[in-house]
């Protein structure tokens, strides 16, 4: 479904990613783990079209989306749950969700999707009229996921969804991700919380200092010292 070929990403003369190769198949959950600053967020932002200083190729279902303006990328069925959630704080919960369904393909199915999102996160229905900035961290994360689902994505990009959340809430979020995946939505999950991410993934990549250092099944990554070493910077 998503293919990334020889992706180099730059910030001016600083380079963030070196030759990243990556694939996400239909209905897969794929996670990318690695230490802070390895370039994980850069990768997600680049895929979502938020960052455009790059070389290489990004294909979504075979069509080249490498250089599309970000407002066109979402037409190809990608939706992002950005790091730090970045909900629209002064808008109501309901407005945030409605905005998610901005692209015409999603607008047509707005009512059905909204019912589904409310079913996944009943709290978003209860707080529909509240300003999103006043939600708790966990609720904001749910809203960010709900907003992305409103776009009816085929591939959901999640950047550090567990960041700053209490463990109970993380459980809830990750359960919902599996439910969403069961409905046929592929997921590319970037996580600092290695164990959680690997728990729900079918495949995983280790990103370290801007390069794919390892790939394989969660079991393979966990069995290897590589992950521990690159995240903690120590030998074990």
């Amino acid at each position, binding site marked *: 479904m998503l293919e990334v070929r020889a992706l180099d990403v730059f*910030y*001016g*003369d*600083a*380079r*963030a990613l*070196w030759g990243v190769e990556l694939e996400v198949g239909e209905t897969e959950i794929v996670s990318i783990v690695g*230490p*802070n*600053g390895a370039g994980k967020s850069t990768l997600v932002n680049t895929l979502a079209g938020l960052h455009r200083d790059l070389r290489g190729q990004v294909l979504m279902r075979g069509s080249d989306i490498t250089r599309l303006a970000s407002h066109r990328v979402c037409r190809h069925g990608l939706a992002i749950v950005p*790091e*730090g959630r970045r909900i629209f704080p002064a808008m109501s919960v309901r407005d945030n969700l409605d905005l998610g369904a901005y692209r015409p393909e999603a607008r047509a199915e707005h009512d059905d999707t909204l019912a589904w999102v409310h079913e996944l996160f009943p709290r978003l229905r209860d707080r529909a009229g509240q300003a999103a900035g006043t939600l708790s961290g966990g609720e904001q994360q749910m809203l960010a996921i709900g907003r992305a689902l409103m776009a009816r994505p085929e591939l959901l990009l999640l950047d*550090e969804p*567990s*960041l*700053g959340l209490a*463990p109970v809430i*993380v*459980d809830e979020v*990750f359960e919902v991700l599996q439910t969403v995946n069961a409905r046929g939505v592929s997921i590319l999950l970037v*996580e*600092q*919380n*290695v*164990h*959680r*991410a*690997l*728990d729900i993934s079918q495949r995983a990549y280790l990103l370290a*200092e*801007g390069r794919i250092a390892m790939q394989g099944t969660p079991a393979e990554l966990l069995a290897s010292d590589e992950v*521990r*070493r*690159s*995240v*903690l*910077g*120590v*030998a074990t």
Partner: protein
Amino acid sequence: MARRGLALLLLAAAVLAAAAPLREVFGFPTFYLIFMATVFFWVAQSTSWNILSGYSGYFSFGQGAFFGVGAYATAVLMSRHDFDFIATLPVAGLVAVLIALAIGAVAFRLRSLRGEIFALLTLAVPFIIAPFVRVTPALDGGQGLRVPVPRQYVDLVGGFPEFIFLASLAIATLAVAIAYTAQHSRMGWALFAIRDAENVAEGLGVPTFRYKMLAISLNGFIAGLAGAVFAVQVGFLTVEGVFNLTVPLFVIVMSVLGGRSHWLGPALGALVIVSMRDRLAASGFEGWSLVILGLVLATLVLLAPEGLMARLLIRPRAASLVFAAVFLALAAYGGWGAPLDWLAVAMAAAAVVAFLPVSRRRLRQQEARLLADEAIAGPAEVQPVETEPAEVQPVEVQPAANLLAQPAPAPELGQPVIECLDVARSFGGVHALRGVSLTVREGELVGLVGPNGSGKTTLVNLISGAFAPTGGEIRILGRSTRAMPQHRMAHLGVARTYQIPRPFESMSVRDNVAVAIMFGRQPRSLAEARRLAAEHLELVGLSRLAGARPSEINLHERQLLEMARALAGRPRVLLLDEALAGLNPAEIDNATQVVRRIHQSGVTIVLVEHLLRVVNQLATRIVVLDQGLALADGAPQAVMSDPAVIQAYLGKGAHA
């Protein structure tokens, strides 16, 4: 150097002043004196504006207020209280300074002040003063104010035009001399640093508030004096005639046209604009001069914000050739216009040549050279910078092998440099730090680590004084920093770098460091600071790039420059905020060596870094922050094998 420049300036003024008595000898018309007086008036106005707005970057629209109160001070004192003209001058200047200080005291204290807000605040000032002057009978009272001719001075110099010419020349000379001196003194460097990156300047020890107040006062003082001469020149003042937007418009257009980075830029702009207006008026197109001015402003801001001065210096020969050719051709033809027309057309032609497209790179170099004062900075030809090849061969990284291979020297722990006592900081309900206590002693290299969002950068911001804690207290060398301005903390010995390097873009690499020395813990003169800067550049390995501009060096080099600049103030403790972010492995290894060298030279360091292998290699002690609290604190090996730390980093599986 500065003295020689001033002497040249005074000589030029004296030569110009001689034109007044020589007028009758050569028989050129009085009109020329009036024309030149107008030029000088605007030279004074725009140059004074530029000291604040050009040098510091805070655009003021309030020039009319300074100029207006100066004019009214002289007018009221002369017409209502029979003051001598010369005696009114200090009053005119000081009244304007008071207005300036009032504006500055309010505006520069605003936490939320940005350039736009300053512009709008100053825009309002003339409109506040105007009605007050209009309805106050002791000042104007709505009738306007007749200003007597200062007979004794006029008789002394042989006529009213001569008097106005000489008085305007004097004020203009004073203005340019002050602008020249300011640019060649600590003040100029402080203001340029403020313009390029105000927070950084404050953090390096520049008392930014004081310098901004000084700049706005000088602006007011000179504008007030120019107003005094203006009052006598026009002979009749009205509120509408002085407190309007024409004055700020003119000074802004003149300075933007001439160039704001150079003391002579606004004067050049004034000469061009006044000539243009004069010629348009003489040809009956007076109504079009504002149209042209507005267009010039809009176009230049969009296409050539650096202005004429920098452009002319790139093509000095072409511009002067065209100027001479056009002037001589018109003179030889002789069938059109007067010499002033030829001059104006030739100037316009030279300006067009100057504004022909030129590469960004040359422009930036030229601007920086203007600033650097070419005589000191060395030969005009800047050596092309050898940039690293884009692809540095990735070095095989073997963290395990490097690990603690070169342990930091066993630190002899000295007195506490930083003491954080239960420090907390929240941002509108979000608790970034929830009570962290931490002591850093002299000689330590403390690694401050933690997952994203754990509060590391917030802690650095608090310790460096960028903002104040909402709870707890921070002591530097035993002194409480409560309510202490940031530049004072720099003088106590705290320095920092920024995650995204923020060099002073208009200065060379060497001057970036020199400016930090000039305002550091042991202030030095510019010449000495430039000499000392070389040592710091040597320490971080940037010597060969000393003459380059920050925009010409790569990220790694900019980060090294951050370090050199932070060290230049001779800090007791250096806070490095993610100084390795975005570097490739080879660069990381180099930067690691540099940090070690800095530490070995005796500087205490707090290193915020997410590359843990580097932290493990360098730190004598590691502090782990998680969710705004200190999770662990101790020797690197012990901390990194603490299960709580491992969990904070790796997370825990739902079923683990």
